[in-house]
């Protein structure tokens, strides 16, 4: 059956997250970006919505089953509020979800209850590396087996909350394939930069550089490892959903502004040049939302082409977010270029999608 309507449970979640995004995240976005920090209180409030908790089975302390479709719905709503805020709230998933997907029974028991039953705590993952053609399938960070343990070497960038993280998943090249490894806080050889990353956008999300020099780690899933494609697809879908949310935010601002702003005796929205931009923004947002949903549904149902679809959704949504957020600024004119106006930040955030893989996961 084809169906395009969230179920009741999903709708409740979407409504709750949407309210939080609109009432809490959106108004805080500008000051958080300028002040380079998201208010702790807001992060806790977002955590209490229970997105991660709802995707962890009861046996590990949660109260539900993971669904990429539900995740995509929630991430879109969150990111509609603010991208940095959304990524802050959801950071513990970066660690917990890969364990849920690929962890051994022992690893699940060890980490999941602690994370989902408690307050928001910094857990994270390290995927990106500093190369222009970064490719999650050919990482420069390496892992070598050493008895029961593994030894990691390399350098990771854009790692959220790395400074205080209780633990992180580090992705590394193990005999030619990408695998995740669990690195404990304070491991010998783990060096987190003092300075935070300085990026074009996302400044309210504290990100760090992480060096690994012969760091001892355990492999996700134990000796037999795990299927990284499942994790990568979940990251791509999250990124796609976030791109849709950011685009929707810019579209909403631009639409409302266009209905208020006068020029040549009419509202600028009454000019086709503006109205058509809005129509195209809305159309492309819808297109990529549906592509993302389908990819998520395929991942949930283990359809054979879920990898390709997640990749297409990720790639297409990134382009779409750039196009839409660019036009958001255009519709505001000169005012769109001024940092006081939200479309400005949205355009900077909108550019990041292809190179910010691994900052969210569903």
């Amino acid at each position, binding site marked *: *059956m*084809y*169906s*395009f*309507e*969230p*179920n009741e449970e*999903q709708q409740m979640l979407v409504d709750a997250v949407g309210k939080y995004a609109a009432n809490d995240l959106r108004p805080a976005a500008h000051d958080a970006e300028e002040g380079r920090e998201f208010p702790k209180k807001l992060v806790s409030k977002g955590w209490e919505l229970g997105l991660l908790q709802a995707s962890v089975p009861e046996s590990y302390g949660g109260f539900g089953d993971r669904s990429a*479709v539900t995740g995509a*719905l929630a991430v879109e709503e969150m990111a509609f509020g603010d991208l940095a805020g959304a990524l802050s709230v959801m950071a513990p998933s970066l660690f917990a979800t890969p364990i849920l997907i690929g962890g051994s029974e022992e690893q699940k028991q060890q980490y999941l209850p602690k994370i989902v039953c408690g307050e928001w705590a910094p857990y994270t993952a390290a995927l990106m590396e500093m190369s*222009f*053609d*970064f*490719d999650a*399938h050919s990482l420069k960070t390496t892992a070598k087996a050493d008895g029961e343990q593994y030894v990691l070497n390399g350098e990771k960038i854009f790692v959220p909350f790395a400074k205080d993280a209780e633990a992180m998943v580090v992705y590394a090249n193990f005999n030619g394939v990408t695998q995740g490894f669990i690195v404990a806080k304070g491991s010998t050889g783990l060096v987190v930069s003092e300075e935070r990353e300085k990026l074009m956008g996302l400044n309210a999300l504290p990100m760090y550089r992480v060096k690994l020099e012969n760091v001892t780690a355990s492999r996700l899933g134990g000796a037999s490892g795990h299927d990284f494609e499942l994790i990568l697809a979940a990251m791509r879908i999250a990124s796609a959903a976030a791109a849709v949310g950011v685009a929707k935010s810019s579209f909403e601002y631009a*639409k409302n502004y*266009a*209905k208020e702003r006068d020029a040549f005796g009419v509202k600028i*929205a*009454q000019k*086709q040049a503006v*109205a*058509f931009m*809005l*129509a*195209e923004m*809305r*159309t*492309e947002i*819808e*297109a*990529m939302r*549906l*592509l993302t*949903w*389908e990819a998520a*549904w*395929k991942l949930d*149902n283990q359809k054979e082409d879920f*990898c*390709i*679809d997640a*990749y*297409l959704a990720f*790639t*297409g949504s990134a*382009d779409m977010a750039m196009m839409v957020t660019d036009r958001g600024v255009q519709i505001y004119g000169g005012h769109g270029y001024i940092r006081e106006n939200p479309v400005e930040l949205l355009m900077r955030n909108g550019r990041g999608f*292809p190179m910010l893989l691994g900052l969210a996961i569903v």
Partner: protein
Amino acid sequence: MTIEFEAPKPIVQQQVMLKTVAENMMRSVSREFDENEHSIPWDYVEFMHTAMKAAGGGGGLTVTEEKPKEGAEKRPPIGYQKLATQIEMLSWGDVGMYLITPGGGLGAAAVAAAGSPEQKAKFLERFNGDKPTYAAMCMTEPGAGSDTSSIRTRAVLDEATKEWIINGEKIFVTGGDKSFTEYEKLGKGFIVVWASIDPSAGRSGMRAFVIESGTPGVKINKLEHKMGIRVSDTAAISLVDVRVPFENVLGKPTVEKTNTGFKGAMATFDATRPLVAASGIGVARAALEFLKEKLEENGVKIRYGLPRQKLTNIEREVIDMEIMVKSAWLMVLKAVWMADNKKPNALESSMCKVKAGDVTTKVTQKAVEILGPLGYSRELLLEKWFRDAKITDIYEGTGQINRLVVARQILGYTGAELR
């Protein structure tokens, strides 16, 4: 309800069968009928008529509903979804030939949307007859295309005979010839003509009239020579003192200060735009699949999953095309799913038409470019699909008109506020 993308079983089964038709009865003669414009592929026409009748299709490509089996659980309706997938697959075969699939087409759609139960019974019955039968819809005039409110065709009621007298000129009537000219192999069709019963009332004065084939005063002046979809007849029709029975008017025969007449036309568009979009996407998919096949034959593999920076230009193009075609198709599915579930879909229906118009033209243009001489040569079908594709962005509202509709919907504007 939930979010789900599993094709329903009846659709899966239907697609397997239609693909065979597309390959063996459409593509195999595509070139021949493209080169011999206006000749009729009777084999296809008669085969489709028989096949659709046998399948209980109720006459042509129309929305059908399964009768639930005794005691079985009632399943959600999927009639529009089935129809859109049928159209997509037939257009993947040959979009021009899809357009001449026997049945009521846009003419019957207008009756279905704006007609009374008696009118529906009277006019729609025939498509299930022994011979293939057609109907067409005549809105466009030489002086009025996108701006349908400025049509000049007039209908005046002759109080003495209780007949409508219609005068005017219509152009670009898809299927006009097969609907109106009496062919031995075809059943008796009709055209639906939009006219004003009160020009001072603007849109609220517009009504659609059913005119039976053979009615005196109607003349087919010419069949257009076109860039593509050349097997589909596009007629120019003049109407001089055409007398039509009173009961052939769709909707109220009197003018009120409401937009009911025009609303009838718009309701038709909400239903048909996703179907036009579906047909465009069929062509786009044909072009994309052909492109990938040729690339593979020539040793070019598409390496999905790599970052853009590592892809070749061809790989990037193909991946972008795939994103376009897939997402456009999902938009069509959503629009028809809404129609099936009786959800208002004016926005979704126009959005999917905007998207399909863009995607279909872009994808076919790019495919020709990438394949170079293979794309341009008439030895292969790609150049034809490129020509066929362009119509998607023109009829059932141009890309611009559908953008207007989308913009009005999202801004909450009337036609007067955003023209």
